């Protein structure tokens, strides 16, 4: 930990990715991707499986050499100054790489050892992390017997035991219940308020809505990069109609048929409980046609509302667009 190069000023981006490309043989996993994340921001790095999310993170961590382009963390080049990068980053994966047969406290101690914390630092840090993770009184419980939410917070605690300035969280909340997930996001924002930069990947778009800025990657290409609100305004192709009917199952069959024979240009139609969500190019224009179609089949339409898209709607719309169209 000694003799580190000096840290950059806060005005410089904490994460900087320039024209980054990674090829594996013929396959381009990450394709000329550029973005930056300012210090203290909570940034969502989103994409379908196999889109290049983890490959990007591995290049930022210096675990994988880029084919071309550059990745910088806190001004350090990830490919050539890997040690300096490692000293200042924390990483937590969805597997919560904790030792189940160690206690909570022993896990913290282990990770502190790996990071080379002095025993003095460690004495201060253990109670801080137990407090943060809400594990006071459970420090001697075997990690394997903790439930998902506790384990998740302990894994985060272990990932940040060395006070990293940038934290990478790779699907940190898979399979954790809503209350634990909210608490986890509270921790993320506590870190951000202390100036820590957080890059988080998640498959849950309700969670991605909590990020200050998000990037969508699809097929190795960056297809969107903006705040959630702005993406909802600019990236959604089509508008969502929420339709309440007397018989949602039949209405669904009718709309599916209309989608297949192209009577109405329906981008998507899906059951949401008692409602149906139908994505049309223009809600005002196609409202009457949808109404007519359903009444023709003697289905009563109770309600038809043009609703705001969720981030998931926007995400699916963006990753489905052919490259270049965005």
């Amino acid at each position: 930990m000694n003799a580190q190069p000096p840290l950059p000023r806060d005005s410089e981006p904490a994460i900087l990715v320039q024209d980054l490309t990674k090829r594996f043989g013929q396959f381009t996993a990450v394709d000329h991707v550029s973005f930056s994340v300012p210090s203290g921001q909570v940034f969502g790095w989103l994409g379908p499986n196999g889109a290049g999310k983890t490959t990007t993170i591995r290049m930022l961590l210096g675990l994988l050499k880029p084919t071309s382009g550059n990745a910088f963390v806190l001004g350090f080049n990830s490919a050539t100054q890997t040690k300096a990068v490692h000293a200042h980053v924390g990483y937590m994966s969805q597997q919560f790489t904790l030792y189940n047969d160690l206690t909570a406290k022993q896990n913290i101690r282990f990770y502190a050892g790996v990071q080379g914390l002095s025993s003095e630092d460690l004495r201060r840090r253990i109670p801080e992390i137990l407090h943060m993770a809400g594990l006071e009184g459970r420090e001697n419980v075997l990690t394997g017997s903790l439930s998902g939410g506790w384990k998740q917070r302990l894994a985060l605690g272990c990932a940040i035991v060395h006070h990293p300035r940038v934290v990478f969280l790779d699907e940190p909340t898979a399979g954790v219940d809503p209350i634990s997930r909210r608490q986890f996001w509270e921790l993320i924002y506590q870190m951000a308020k202390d100036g820590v930069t957080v890059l988080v990947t998640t498959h849950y778009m309700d969670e991605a809505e909590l990020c200050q800025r998000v990037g969508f990657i699809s097929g190795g290409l960056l297809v969107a990069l903006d705040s959630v609100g702005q993406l909802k305004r600019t990236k959604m192709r089509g508008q969502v109609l929420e339709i309440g009917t007397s018989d949602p199952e039949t209405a669904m069959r009718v709309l599916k048929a209309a989608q297949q024979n192209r009577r109405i240009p329906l981008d998507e139609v899906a059951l949401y409980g008692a409602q149906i969500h139908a994505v049309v190019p223009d809600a005002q224009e196609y409202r009457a046609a949808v109404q007519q179609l359903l009444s023709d089949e003697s289905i009563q339409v109770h309600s038809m509302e043009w609703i705001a898209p969720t981030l998931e709607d926007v995400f699916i719309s963006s990753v489905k667009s052919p490259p270049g169209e965005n």
Partner: protein
Amino acid sequence: MGEFAISTKDLVKEFPIDHRAMRAVDRLSLQVAPGETYGLIGPDGAGKTTTTRVILGLLSRTGGESSVLGFDSMRDMYQVRERVGYIAQQFSLPPNLTVLENMRFFADLHSVSVDQQSARIPELLAFAGLSDFRGRLAGKLSGGMKKKLALACCLIHEPQVVMLDEPTLGVDPVSRREFWSLLGNLRAEKGLTIFVCTPYMDEAERCTRVGLIYEGRLIVDDSPAHIKATIPGHLLEFTPSVFAPALTLCTGIDGVLEVQTYGDKLHVFVDNVPLRQPQIEAALASQGISLDAPREIEVRMEEAFISLIRRRAQGPQQNSIPGPSSRTPGGVP
């Protein structure tokens, strides 16, 4: 209990732990009508998986009744098996068998005749969008395709009821939506009864009815729309300039019914938005706290879930969900 696809009455399941009985399911009664998509939700460790496994007859019950399509989970176990498709939480498909071989394997397990197999397998592969992948090893499929194959396999014996335990864990949004769209098709086209355990509240919104289970008991059982309507007050969302003091302050303001945290935002339930919003802004301003973009938003299942669980866990007198440093309901082992 005959007219229900799934029914339990005063269902109890206890596990012996350290010579004492730990009650995982506590006098739970629920009924699922044929054709419903029923979502069982609840915090980690609330008893969702145990309930599912008892209904299926995979675990013996301690007390009460449970049945599927009128067949008793324990006495008529084989009749239940013949009529139910099940995807367990940690399901695994033989990775060194191809997609087609997996389908045949599950068909054989369910004694589906060769004739029936040759009709159903292509149909199910088409339904799951796997027709072009029939020769691929299951181990080489993407996460989303594995889930779809599991669904196709569990439908091979033409069950009337499917029970799915967190079926979309770890799959990406595109695959998750495709999976739910398949479930929607099963509901619309085949009238299948679908019973699904999920920790994701956006999935709960896609169910016709939702049961909320907490410490082994069913505490709410209604449509998502009705559940959301039971949450008192209107929901204000804003970002305070300083988080922790704003949280504490809001909790004590008149007319504030509940405060939830949402990343760096606060979700404040109030009795009257036009009246309380200026009061909240003034109270925060007096402490030097400004707030950004306050707006009224609709309550989603997620806010409803947190509100209902919090009230259960802490009694009605406390107004905010605890910070990570307090005892949380997520900690049930």
